[in-house]
């Protein structure tokens, strides 16, 4: 119980810390904020239930007024802004990533985590994000999808990185990979 709670809390803090660190630059010069990578890692490492709770905890604290979203944003305004879908989608995406990860027990950790991140952290998250844009900007699904396509390649790269990092964690701290230890 204590361990579950502290892992959930520390991964919520990890999502925040990944949004605060200066942007990383990938080999080919593309800067990324690592915040959505943190959401993917919640799922691939902690599994559906605890990963979802970690992202939910993060979201609740952002709403309470902590400037933890990338770029120092936070507060209740997030809920009425155009990016509301992505924000609300964080816990669902972490849960979905963890769910898919748990379904792929037989696959190698790196592949399972990358595929789960792609499904949960990109497909599910963008579905929520696009619906949010449709609501606030009052546009159709195609227009809203066009607005976010520029960010999809970066998030696909992040899903691959989530796979590699989860595989590394499996070697470094196998006992903490709750998605594989039940």
């Amino acid at each position: 119980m204590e361990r579950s709670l502290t892992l959930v809390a520390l991964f919520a803090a990890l999502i925040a810390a990944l949004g605060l660190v200066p942007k990383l630059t990938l080999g080919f010069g593309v800067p990324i904020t690592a915040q959505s990578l943190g959401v993917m890692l919640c799922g691939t490492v902690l599994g559906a239930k605890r990963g979802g709770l970690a992202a939910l905890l993060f979201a609740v604290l952002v709403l309470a007024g902590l400037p933890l979203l990338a770029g120092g944003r936070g507060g209740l305004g997030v809920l009425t802004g155009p990016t509301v879908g992505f924000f609300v989608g964080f816990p669902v995406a972490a849960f979905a990533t963890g769910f898919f990860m748990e379904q792929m027990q037989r696959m190698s950790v790196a592949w399972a985590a990358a595929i789960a991140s792609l499904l949960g952290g990109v497909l599910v998250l963008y579905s929520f994000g696009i619906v949010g844009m449709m609501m606030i900007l009052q546009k159709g699904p195609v227009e809203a999808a066009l607005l976010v396509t520029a960010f999809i390649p970066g998030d696909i790269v992040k899903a691959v990185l989530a796979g590699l990092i989860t595989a590394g964690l499996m070697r470094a701290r196998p006992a903490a990979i709750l998605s594989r230890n039940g």
Partner: protein
Amino acid sequence: MISLTSPVETRAHHWPAGLKLALLSGATVALFAVETVLGQALFFATMVALYALPGSGFLRAGIDRLRMLWPFLVLIALWHLAIGELAAGALIALRMVTAVGLANLVTMTTKLSDMLRVIERLCAPLRIFGVRPEPIALAMALVVRFVPVLSGKGHLLVMAWRARAARRVGWRILLPFAVIAIDDAEHVAEALRARGGL
């Protein structure tokens, strides 16, 4: 850690957080029900007036926080110029800015501790499902404490990388960073158990 509460003390700082949240909910529902540009403009003007009441410093801080919306405003303007429906564009843009502005207003005038107390109160009914509110409160406190701790350790990692490598800091630094988070979690869990546990 610095929360988004405004350091400029306003009268609304002393109102109960629950009341402010209820007012915000009501105002937001009304805002989305108004379908005329004039109505939205009135809402917008009221919001600006509310920001201006506590003084120019507060107003400037408020405008600063709305700055993240400008790419979307540009998009709305371009889009509605292209399809020739300027009135609809104005309506959407005004509504978006006012909705975010009003919500920010509540965040700026409410202390983090007051907001957390509201969340705790909202969590109380979960007791029916066997969820105790105390661990939730502890988890929230842990996150508030560990965000600066983890970021600090992250910066140390970045400095260590720079001291040793000629290459720019890349994604590989994220693995030791995640290991640090896991190790901290294990240590805190051990400390909690040593003090009687949850």
